[in-house]
């Protein structure tokens, strides 16, 4: 099995001039390019509008017709930054804490399902994935009571624990796919050299897996950062996260659209940047390691 990064097939068009270089084909190509750009911009429009609106003064945000020219201001951002402190801290703790927990639990588990597999590794894999199919949503009432009784209501620990459980199956599948990339010859050679299990892991497996570790962590960060359902049900104020901050930025009355847009922009930007940087690993993570 060879794992190749996606091939760019557009290079394989024959260099010899063929019918496809006629004027009609050129027009078609230009049309498709133009179409792709237009579609891209339409898809991006709501996000672009969010960012534009965030720089409007509140009075320019709720007008008909919508205004495209205005003198940009940072005043809404200033208000957002002054209010979001505890929320963004909670989000950061829940996201980073749960991701570390996922990696600590997931790495050895992935090892036990790939490099030195347990006998029933297939059942193990399917158990983990099946927990993603039993929606935690269904058990939210009992979960609320459990969290309440264990004193974890409105505690960041509840979110860390649950986010870790939410992302662990994904991470195990993904990490496993990276571990399977360690060539068996290399493992064999290390063993013949008398490398113990520890050396095998630190010197042979980890160097191959560490880029995968980063992409796994990024995927976990995206899902934990964006999570709302559990945060909404299990936190009130002390442990409330950024999605909760967004909800609180919609007041009962008064103008709020510019303020909301600024808050939404600030809340989304970290993950958007992480995702842009990690585009390649995104595919792999989202397909649970099935697609490289």
């Amino acid at each position, binding site marked *: 099995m060879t794992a190749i990064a996606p091939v760019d097939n557009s290079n394989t068009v024959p260099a010899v001039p063929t019918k496809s270089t006629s004027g009609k084909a050129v027009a078609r190509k230009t049309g498709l390019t133009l179409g792709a750009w237009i579609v891209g911009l339409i898809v991006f429009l709501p996000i672009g509008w969010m960012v534009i609106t965030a720089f409007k003064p509140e009075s320019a945000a709720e007008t008909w017709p919508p205004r495209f020219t205005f003198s940009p201001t940072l005043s809404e951002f200033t208000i957002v930054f002054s209010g979001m402190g505890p929320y963004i801290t909670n989000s950061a703790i829940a996201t980073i804490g749960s991701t570390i927990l996922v990696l600590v639990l997931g790495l050895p588990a992935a090892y036990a399902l790939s490099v030195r597999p347990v006998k029933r590794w297939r059942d*193990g894999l399917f158990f983990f994935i099946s927990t993603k199919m039993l929606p935690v949503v*269904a*058990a939210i009432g*009992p979960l609320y009571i459990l969290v309440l009784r264990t004193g974890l209501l409105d505690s960041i620990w509840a979110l860390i624990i649950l986010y870790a459980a939410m992302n662990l199956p994904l991470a195990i599948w993904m990490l496993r796919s990276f571990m399977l990339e360690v060539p068996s010859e290399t493992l064999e050679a290390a063993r013949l050299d008398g490398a113990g299990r520890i050396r095998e892991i630190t010197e042979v497996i980890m160097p191959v897996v560490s880029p995968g570790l980063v992409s796994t962590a990024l995927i976990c960060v995206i899902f934990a950062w964006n999570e*709302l359902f559990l945060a909404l049900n299990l936190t009130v104020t002390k442990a409330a996260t950024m*999605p909760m901050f967004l909800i609180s930025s919609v007041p009962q009355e008064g103008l709020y659209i510019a303020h*909301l847009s600024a808050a939404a922009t600030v809340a989304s930007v970290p993950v958007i940047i992480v995702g842009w940087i990690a585009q390649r690993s995104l595919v792999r993570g989202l397909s649970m390691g099935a*697609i490289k």
Partner: protein
Amino acid sequence: MAVLEQAPPTAPAGPRPRAMSAREKWSRRLPLLPALLYTIIVTQVPFLVMIWYSFQSYYWNEPGGSWFNGVSNYAHVFTDPDFLNAIVRTVTMTVIAVLLTVIIGTALAVLLDRKFPGRGVVRTLIITPFLVMPAAAALIWQGPMLDPNFGLLNYLLAPFGVNHEAWLSNHAYGTVIVVMVWQWMPFMMLIVLAGLQSQPGDVLEAAKVDGASAWSTFRELTVPHLRPYLELGILLGTIYLVTTFDQIRLMTQGGPGTQTTTLPYYLYEKVNYAFDIGGSAAAGVVTVVLTIIVASFALRMFARVFQFEEAR
């Protein structure tokens, strides 16, 4: 090949399973145990507690705790039209949304599977909806985009005769689906694009040389090649879309009336507004039973998708 072969390399990994000593077996199991125990405790215990509460009358805002009330929670749930409608609505919304993400995602992937100026930028623009915090996206759609009085969408559609349409009041169901699709089609696009780009170029070229039309090449070669990718996308897309909550909570609150009340939102309301733990637990048990039925098919599909290369 871009799709991973799933069998672990058993050959060099020490003695064959049958010859494994008990010690070797346990040393293999040990690294798996923490994750396994953690997952069992955190994900399965709430479900056991749920079964217990589904036979109790328990309102968490009232003193007096819970008491056994037999199957009356279940009787309520099964005669609650809101619950039954929520099930149907969850299924129809998920199916429509998944189908649309597949169709649009595939079209976008085909569009992006050629070299053109700015391809990377367009790709980046298209994946961004998936990265935006769903709560942020929902609120941006609800306000700046869809507001009947000042929303950008009505402005852009005005030339087509749309006049200050209140999308979330008059077309809540469709509008929520549109936002779900907008958020999830990049996911499908990425998976299909990976499939398209893993096609061996020489086969496509041979088809071209043989004079096959673009459409017949797509149908005869590309679609069969894409099949496992589409299956994977549909499977994972369903898992994520069926639990859609943020958009509904923030855009429609399940309304107007109960027009967009799906199961997640129904359960949320039962816990947060009716304080009814017993009732929510019974509804949860029914949901889980239904999910298990669907999931057992899904797991079989998973097994097939992840092994299709071994089977070759």
